[in-house]
């Protein structure tokens, strides 16, 4: 690590925000929450607005030509130094692990990609491991369970940082779900290619969430939360999906993508799903 950790408030730490196309378009509250939390702990956040997409959907579906085009633009969008922080485990993992694969035959781009990869962090990882945050100073309150998204947990090895932060919030009653690290079924393009398998996996995840009695399920990956949240919204389960950044900043309500005001959604009786798929 070329940078020293430190919380000297006189020296704001330079951070570029990688806000992700998904959050940009569907949950911009996640991005503003991320900025706020970073600034709360001494980061000077800049937002390069030429960024678009890291190229993950193209890479994951085997369309490397298009992925490379987006990756090149990504590499050009960020400065040569400073941290890059993103509220998405899968996007951070894409840059760190996917870019070296994409550019394995292009030495110069590969070098740049590797250098950027070393400076990129997911939000909770950055707060705990780099800034040394132990208390997010959030006024969020509620019973919360946490979903380990696959790329954050297995791709980046981030397991305890989100939990440390959640447990440190006085208003949060944290409860672990069973199979917290079992895939939720989103898988990006998988949810479009094999939607029924995807949904079955999401159902199992929602079952585990409901079994905890938590009012909120959170995660470091918006894709997972949209898949889980989408099922919750359709059926009307009494739990809300909310991004980790939003809990850290101190916000109630769920992902704004599904209901502007959670209280106004009429819950439908559980089990009234449209097809006869087995459980």
């Amino acid at each position, binding site marked *: 690590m070329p940078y020293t950790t430190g919380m000297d408030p006189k020296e704001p730490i330079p951070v570029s925000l990688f806000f992700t196309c998904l959050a940009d378009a569907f949950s911009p509250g996640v991005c503003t929450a991320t900025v706020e939390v970073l600034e709360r702990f001494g980061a000077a956040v800049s937002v390069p*607005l030429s960024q678009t997409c890291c190229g993950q959907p193209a890479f994951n579906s*085997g*369309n*490397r030509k298009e992925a490379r085009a987006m990756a090149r633009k990504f590499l050009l969008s960020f400065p040569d130094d400073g941290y890059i922080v993103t509220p998405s485990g899968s996007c951070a993992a894409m840059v760190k692990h996917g870019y070296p694969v994409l550019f394995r035959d292009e030495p110069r781009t590969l070098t740049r990609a590797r250098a950027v990869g070393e400076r990129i962090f997911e939000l909770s990882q950055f707060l705990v491991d780099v800034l040394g945050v132990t208390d997010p100073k959030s006024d969020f309150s509620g019973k919360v369970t946490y979903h380990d998204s*696959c790329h954050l947990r*297995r*791709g980046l090895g981030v397991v305890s940082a989100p939990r440390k932060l959640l447990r440190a919030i006085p208003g949060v009653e944290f409860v672990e779900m069973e199979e917290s690290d079992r895939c939720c079924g989103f898988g990006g393009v998988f949810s479009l290619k094999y939607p029924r398998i995807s949904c*079955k996996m999401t159902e199992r995840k929602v079952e585990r969430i409901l079994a905890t009695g938590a009012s909120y399920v959170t995660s470091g990956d918006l894709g997972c939360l949209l898949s889980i949240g*989408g099922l919750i919204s359709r059926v009307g389960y009494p739990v809300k999906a909310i991004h980790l950044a939003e809990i850290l900043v101190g916000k109630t309500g769920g992902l704004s993508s599904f209901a502007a005001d959670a209280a106004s959604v009429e819950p439908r009786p559980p089990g009234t799903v449209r097809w006869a798929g087995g459980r």
Partner: protein
Amino acid sequence: MGGRPLMELNANAFGRNSRKALLDKTLQEALGRTTGRFQAHRDAAVAAFPEFEATRERASRIKRDVLDHLDTYLARFIEEAEKRGAVVHVARGPGQAREIAARIARDEGVTLAVKSKSMASEEISFNEALQGAGVTVVESDLGEFIIQLAGEAPSHIIAPAVHKTREQISRLFERHLGEPRTDSIPELVAMARRHLRAKFLSAGMGVSGGNFLVADTGSVVIVTNEGNGRMGTVLPRVHLAVVGIEKVIPRLADLPTFLRLLPRSASGQTISSYVSIVTGARRAGDPEGPERTHILLLDCGRSAILEGKYREILKCVRCAACLNACPVYQSVGGHAYGWVYSGPIGAVLTPLLVGLPEAAALPDASTLCGACADVCPVKIPLPDFLLELRSDAREQGLKAPGEIAAMKGYAGVMKRAGLLEAIERIAGVLGQFFTKGKGIAGLPYPFSGWTERRDFPVPAARPFRKRWKIQRGVTR
């Protein structure tokens, strides 16, 4: 005793077959019970074995060394095996393998063969080849025996009848063996034992697979819990082992490393009930043992894989830990994968052995969650290989034109932040107008699959990039 139908390749029907599997209540129950148990036992066994990671690393290195010098190790294996009286055959492809198998049966005058588990033999439709040579083939592995009676293909590498209930099995035994109906599992097992014991004692040939081939002694190692592998390699007068060439390990002293990993990874056992290390033919003075030992080594696409970027797939020891860990396999079972190998290993090995055009649906059948890589005892990078195969599919022109067009369109939009923002603004306005902020319940293809059972998020009225400009008064 009927034969098993040809292992038809049906991998590209994964979508259709997986949908059927999701609706099959019996299968869903069986899958939940089985994979859950295997996974829990495996995790407990690994937790109780502090040397697991070190052993995994060691096994991975040994297997890599083997792949780097496969021709040398194979040559040594053949030399040592033949020195001790075995007859070794090498088949380049499935057709040649079937011919050799049939010829052996005819030359040895075999009319009844009892078989223990061999995945490799399924690749070449071995049973059918032998039947063509006038040989009755009886599967002795209990799960294989059951599905042979049912005329089906196995649905899991180590638990082939995982999809069958005891009622279904009892009905099969009633119909084919004349046994009375029962719902007692020990009684069912006892029926199979009695019936198959008679076969073992009268069969002319015992056919086995091979978990490992030991190069420095010329031995074939067979790992079972039931004891059928032992019976088939000791009692009949001919033993035929059908084994892929990649199963070689360098030395007998390396065997314990793999024995520490295989049973734990497969079913959470410290060791399986039986490990048989058979070397050569019966020696003068041995009271039992086959008079003739044949070893049929299968290439069948393996040396081609060895040459390429997927060579590490040949480290596989067929433990099925990846199947048990895979949430997709757990949802749909093995038949949906349409060939011999299923789950994550199948999603990679099937396209490599039968050709990607025949199996391009399989590498897509994964969320790339990585659970398989976590449990693979020999550290095969399965998710990396799935990604690589998806890329190969694009390069080989196997992707739907619609997908490529969509990708090009998406990349085209992402080229220019200004264009992206414009589209987001429009989508946001339309979205908010039509849904008033609640989730979207119905979308056209390709999103229709999502909205069948889940709401789709509404695009935000203002994307973040616009908000940032407004909030911070920045323009770039």
